[in-house]
């Protein structure tokens, strides 16, 4: 009895999908678009985070020390910096080391020193590495506040705008995905409404002869679910292939761009897409069935 009915529900949903072919097609396509966008948005964010992290981890704060600070003062400053929160590492580059790094060749260095009157112009430098990316800016400020530190350098110029960009892209991406999800919901709802209308007489007869409610509502519900699922399936194929191809291409040709190429990230995103597709279909049909199929 139950299996007979279930067969009826499934068959009806497929028949309904086929009956309004172009409407179903449009619905599946929009849901595919919505989910494809969702997939790429998520992957983009994952990459942006990854990128930001790899940039941030390279970002160190360089603190330049006044000439008036002696060796003991240097030690004090380093101790104070180490005591700060979020500090991972503190290293000292002395004037001499700095000069040597700048002009490695001994002869060239000697002649340069002669030119500037024997006074090494390179300041003592303390390099501070932050534990977390978010802490860099705050840390730099604290270091600058210390007596004897006259200047700090860090990746602010590059990092801050990038973080701001990803943050706003996050919202734009969310808005675009939401817009397409809304379009999908409207189309699924229209699909169900149309099918309720074409099957009006059949539904009337089913009610008259005592068909259970799930048999009347089931096909519509399942049809919406199917639209979401088919859209998700297509989107998963598209996103899966394009992303795999893209990461392989970048890995081969743009070695310096750090991309997230772990399969687990991609699979996780694809799973989210499938779940989103099903939820979108199921929720929309549940709502529309309640709206269009009253007792």
């Amino acid at each position, binding site marked *: 009895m139950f299996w007979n009915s279930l067969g009826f529900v499934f068959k009806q949903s497929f028949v309904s999908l086929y009956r309004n072919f172009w409407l179903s097609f449009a619905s599946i396509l929009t849901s595919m678009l919505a989910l494809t966008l969702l997939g790429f948005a998520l992957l983009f964010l994952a990459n942006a985070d990854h990128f930001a992290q790899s940039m941030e981890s390279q970002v160190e704060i360089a603190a330049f020390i006044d000439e008036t600070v002696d060796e003991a003062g240097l030690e004090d400053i380093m101790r104070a910096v180490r005591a700060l929160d979020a500090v991972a590492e503190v290293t000292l580059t002395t004037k001499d080391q700095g000069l040597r790094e700048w002009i490695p060749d001994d002869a060239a260095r000697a002649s340069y020193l002669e030119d500037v009157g024997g006074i090494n112009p390179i300041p003592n430098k303390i390099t501070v590495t932050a534990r977390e990316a978010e802490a860099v800016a705050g840390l730099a400020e604290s270091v600058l506040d210390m007596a004897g530190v006259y200047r700090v350098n860090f990746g602010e110029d590059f990092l801050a705008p990038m973080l701001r960009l990803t943050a706003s892209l996050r919202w734009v991406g969310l808005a675009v995905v939401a817009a397409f999800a809304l379009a999908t919901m409207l189309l699924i709802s229209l699909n169900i409404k149309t099918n309720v209308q074409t099957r009006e007489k059949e539904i009337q007869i089913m009610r008259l002869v*005592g068909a259970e409610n799930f*048999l009347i509502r089931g096909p519509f519900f399942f049809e919406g679910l199917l639209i979401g699922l088919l859209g998700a399936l297509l989107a998963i194929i598209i996103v899966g292939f394009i992303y795999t191809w893209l990461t392989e291409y970048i890995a081969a040709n743009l070695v310096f761009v750090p991309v997230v190429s772990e399969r687990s990230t991609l699979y996780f995103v694809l799973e989210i897409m499938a779940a989103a597709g099903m939820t979108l279909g199921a929720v929309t049909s549940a709502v529309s069935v309640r709206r269009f199929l009253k007792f």
Partner: protein
Amino acid sequence: MGAGGIGDCRPNGVISLKSVSKIYANGARALHNVDLEIGAGEFVFLVGQSGAGKSTLIKLLYREETATRGLVMVNRFNLMRLRNYQIPAYRRRIGVIFQDFKLLENKSVFENVAFAQQVIGKPKRERKANTDKMLALVGLSHKARAFPGELSGGEQQRVCVARAMINNPILLIADEPTGNLDEATAWEIMRLLYELNRLGTTVVMATHAMHIVRKMGRRVIRVEGGRIMGEKPEVKL
């Protein structure tokens, strides 16, 4: 016979209406204080002018509408208390036919009749056996593969009777089943209903066809302005 109370109906009562009123959402008063008892195995005509309330009464019986006041009992189902999810179980115990047939044009005669069992989850083999039996009963075995559009009005109504009766209801409700048929065809349907009634089905039929009512000689209930204005008991022929 009982002496009152909610459960009071005839010993084999199939339908029991007590002080039933129906006011539609738009304010139209379709039934006023209707009392009606119909026993098992009866054949009852509902007659009266257009707008008298016959269809409203019929709709209360198959729970398309609910009464505004009063008590409606059918087949021991209290229709005033029936919840939405209980309606299917109730409808399986009754059969309904209409003036406008309500057949599915894209399904064959066989499929139309079998549909009533398909949608209540009967297995295919059982469905086929029952449908064949019902089509034989209404004399349409030879038209099983035809589509409703290829049938005469009388034949279409017989398909509807087969569909209404396939789940073995104890009550058949008919709203002007001969309204679209010529006299000879109408009698064809009446003979069929007569036969079903003889086999034990209670029949309630709303009609304007007074010549049929007179000739059948069964119990007649006259509805006027939403009230029952008189009754003519069965005349044994």
